[in-house]
């Protein structure tokens, strides 16, 4: 197995590469963030179903306004992104998925028996696919509701925030690990 097929990379190589990507993003454009794009995709879908949700407005700072107060906040900046989804942050997230897809193909993909659940889940909760899907659905709800309440996620707050010594980044990370570690210790007693 060559170095480039090894997953996970040794932590020094992986840390260096991931750190470089976060640095290059700030050097050339702005800090990396992901969770806002869930809102933008929701907005795009909602606006497709009900086209009056986001409309152009000459009074709004961004040039767009929304009947939804969240999309309309900060001068309608999310409303603008919903109206023009081919913007930097949305394309970034799509490209991120393509990058992960290419990496997975090059290393031979995810083993068939791990696609629906990881071994550590199977060891603690059994083989039921429905149970795993239900749990990840609820977890996804909590993670994105939490990320939007916090104004960022693991990328935006934890990594981009702490690399800039942002006070909010430390507060967010403290909250995430304060629950994340005890919850995982309680839920996953067998290692898998």
């Amino acid at each position, binding site marked *: 197995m060559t170095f480039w097929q090894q*997953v*996970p*990379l040794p*932590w020094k190589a*992986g*840390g260096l590469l*991931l*750190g*470089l*990507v*976060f*640095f290059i993003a700030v050097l*050339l454009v702005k800090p*990396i963030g992901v969770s806002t794009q*869930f*809102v933008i995709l*929701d907005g795009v879908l*909602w606006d497709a179903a009900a086209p009056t949700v986001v409309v152009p407005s000459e009074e709004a700072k961004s040039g767009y306004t929304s009947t*939804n107060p969240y999309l309309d906040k900060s001068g309608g900046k999310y409303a603008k992104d919903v109206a023009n989804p*081919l913007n930097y942050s949305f394309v*970034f997230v799509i490209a*991120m998925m393509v*990058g992960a897809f*290419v990496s*997975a193909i090059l290393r031979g*993909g995810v083993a068939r028996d791990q*696609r629906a*659940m990881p071994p*550590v889940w199977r060891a603690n909760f059994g083989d039921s696919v429905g149970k795993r*899907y239900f*749990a*990840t659905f609820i*977890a996804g*709800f*909590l*993670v*994105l509701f*939490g*990320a939007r*309440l916090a*104004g960022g996620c*693991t990328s935006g*707050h*934890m990594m981009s*925030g702490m*690399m*800039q010594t942002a006070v*909010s*980044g430390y507060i967010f990370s*403290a*909250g*995430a690990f*304060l*629950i*994340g*570690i005890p*919850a995982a210790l309680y*839920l*996953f007693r*067998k290692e898998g």
Partner: protein
Amino acid sequence: MEITLAILIGAAFGFVLDRIGATNPNYIIRMLNLSDLHLMKTIVAAIGVASILLFAGLLLGLVDPGHLSVKAAYLGVFIGGLLLGLGFAVAGYCPGTGLTALATGRTDALFFVIGGLVGAGAYMLTYAGIAETGLLESIAGGKATLGPVSGADYPSLFSGVAGEWLGIGIGGAFVLIAWVLPGRIGAANKQALPAE
């Protein structure tokens, strides 16, 4: 130009996330139950490396301070972190790794992403009411950094220290923590049951 950068940096980010094992929920869950800290070491080292490069770049004038983007601190940041932490532990996914895991063909990640879209939608619809509770009011200086960064317009908690040198020092501390973190915490006494 900006879209080209989005494609290049985004693709590099997704590629690296997959290579460090972050798209695999097994590594995330075992990081959080402390039985395998490999991914923790990687992430802590990455934050340190990024911080050192960023603040050294600012000192040398290579990085435009206008590219910084510091988020506001408010009570909801902490509560949101708690909610995210719970879901992170259950699923082994966060927003970025959930999407990239879906791209690698993991089917549980699809349900995570759908749940995420519903959760983000629920926040959109309840935002006005949440704003009224005061959870979103700034605390600890709002959009503050630890030390003042010259050329950037953010308040700081410790005005007596140059933010750039503080950032390099904290970055170094992150790298050191990554170095000394053990591979696991606790004895390996939690083996999986043999197949029945």
